[in-house]
């Protein structure tokens, strides 16, 4: 248990944890305003990853409908990231219009909204497979430009490595969090959003266009999803159109751990799971995928409202 070992795991955990947090926030925003889980979030995560890949590398793979097709331009990575995130936001809005709005208009059971969002997820993921094929896409090693792939420094004689990509993950996540916090607490629209999350009828009586805010929430949620999908994709590659499903479920563990509907909770939950996975002893490494779900199960039995949640106010 050297300091180097501790620092290495800490860095790994913080980096992954921050991406989990950003991704989970997409769920949190929708849950706080509609009281339901958007099961298409994982699909938007996947879509964002593929779109940003396409914009920065410019070429489709060898399978799929558009095999070998080349984009007439490519974007430098930061721009591709922003564009991909923006497009994912639009996709999020499309999800709201397709899966959720028609059911709200009919005052349908929340359970149906769940299945409906799963249906949209199915459509999206298979659309991706149709267009991009099922093969693995990997970013070229020079995607981050001329930055070195990793920084290695010595702590107490032992090396600690930080991949540049991990720094990017952490910094982008931090920036997004700060932007979100500023928006929600420092702007008029953010106040209106909080009002809508608390009581749609009252918000409406204050002149707030609730429908527009719900749509806007899905835009931000999709943006966060696409952004985190891209970051994971750059870090680990895109292992196929279904790679977002596992992350999607893991992010559910994040938000329940932190407390459904709580923004600081999503951040805390993300970090706890990220660190939990990073600090897992090497001989248990094949159980890594179970960490998040084991934590989820335990927290549900012990404290269902999550670490930072208030009362278990259920809307389903």
């Amino acid at each position: 248990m050297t300091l180097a070992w501790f620092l290495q795991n800490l860095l790994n955990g913080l980096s992954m944890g921050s991406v989990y947090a950003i991704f989970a926030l997409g769920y949190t925003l929708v849950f706080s305003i509609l009281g339901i889980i958007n099961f298409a979030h994982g699909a938007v995560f996947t879509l964002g990853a593929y779109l940003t890949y396409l914009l920065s590398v410019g070429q489709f793979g060898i399978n799929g409908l558009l095999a070998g097709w080349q984009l007439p331009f490519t974007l430098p990575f930061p721009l591709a990231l922003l564009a991909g995130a923006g497009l994912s936001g639009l996709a999020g809005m499309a999800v709201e219009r397709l899966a959720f709005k028609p059911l709200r208009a009919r005052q349908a059971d929340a359970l149906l909204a769940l299945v409906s969002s799963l249906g949209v997820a199915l459509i999206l993921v298979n659309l991706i497979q149709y267009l991009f094929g099922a093969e693995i896409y990997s970013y070229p090693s020079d995607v981050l430009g001329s930055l070195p792939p990793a920084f290695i420094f010595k702590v107490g004689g032992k090396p600690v490595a930080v991949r540049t990509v991990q720094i990017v993950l952490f910094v982008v996540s931090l920036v997004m969090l700060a932007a979100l916090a500023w928006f929600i607490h420092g702007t008029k629209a953010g106040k209106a959003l909080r009002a809508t999350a608390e009581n749609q009828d009252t918000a409406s009586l204050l002149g707030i266009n609730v429908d527009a805010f719900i749509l806007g929430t899905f835009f931000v949620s999709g943006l966060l999803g696409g952004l985190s999908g891209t970051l994971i994709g750059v870090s680990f590659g895109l292992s196929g159109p279904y790679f977002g499903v596992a992350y999607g479920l893991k992010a559910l563990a994040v938000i329940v751990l932190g407390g459904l509907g709580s923004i600081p909770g999503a951040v805390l939950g993300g970090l706890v799971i990220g660190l939990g996975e990073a600090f897992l002893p090497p001989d248990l490494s094949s159980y890594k995928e179970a960490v998040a779900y084991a934590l989820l199960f335990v927290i549900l039995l012990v404290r269902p409202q999550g670490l930072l949640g208030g009362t278990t106010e259920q809307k389903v």
Partner: protein
Amino acid sequence: MLALDDVTLAYGPVVAVEGVSLTVEQGEIVTLIGANGAGKTTILRAVSRLIKPRKGSVAFMGRDLAGLTPDKVVRLGLAHSPEGRQVLARLSVLENLELGAYVRSDAAGVAEDLERMFGLFPRLRERQRQAAGTLSGGEQQMLAIARALMSRPRLLLLDEPSLGLAPIIVEEIFEIITALNREGTTILLVEQNAHLAMQAAHRAYVLEAGRLVVSGDARALMDDERVKRAYLG
């Protein structure tokens, strides 16, 4: 200013209000009284378009409100302080008031009105940074009214302002209501406390099981038998 014409309102198969016509002229306080469940709140909700009429029409400032969502009605100059106050508990008192002025874009005017509200309701100034949910019932009612006033409405809908409040507070609130009206705010007041409401109002409509049974000058109706029967249930 406000005209309801033969309005029928229903929740699914249950008809709550049937064939009601009423008007509110500029500068008046009109009160809608009746027992619990008579349909008074339902009528207010129809005016602010939280529910849609099954039959009949609602017109505000001469404009038919059909097809509008509540946020659009509010932008026409109407404010609704709902039943149960419905302050946004997790937001601060100040944020609630600021949101009251959501539809306005004149920052200077909003700041001025905020000062005016604090002058009218000094207790709100004291508690402005507190979460609205921590206020007492009377303070929450004041907040609800102040919040509604922040949009400088032409018509203020007040739903049961006396509900659950101590008599002294209720008196205070009704003094404020009367003062507001003197300064020019038109008010449609729904109240279970018929006595207070009739004293404050110019005209009254009496509702019984979803139907209007009598209407007219408030003072004249105070001793009317039908009124007594209606609000005693």
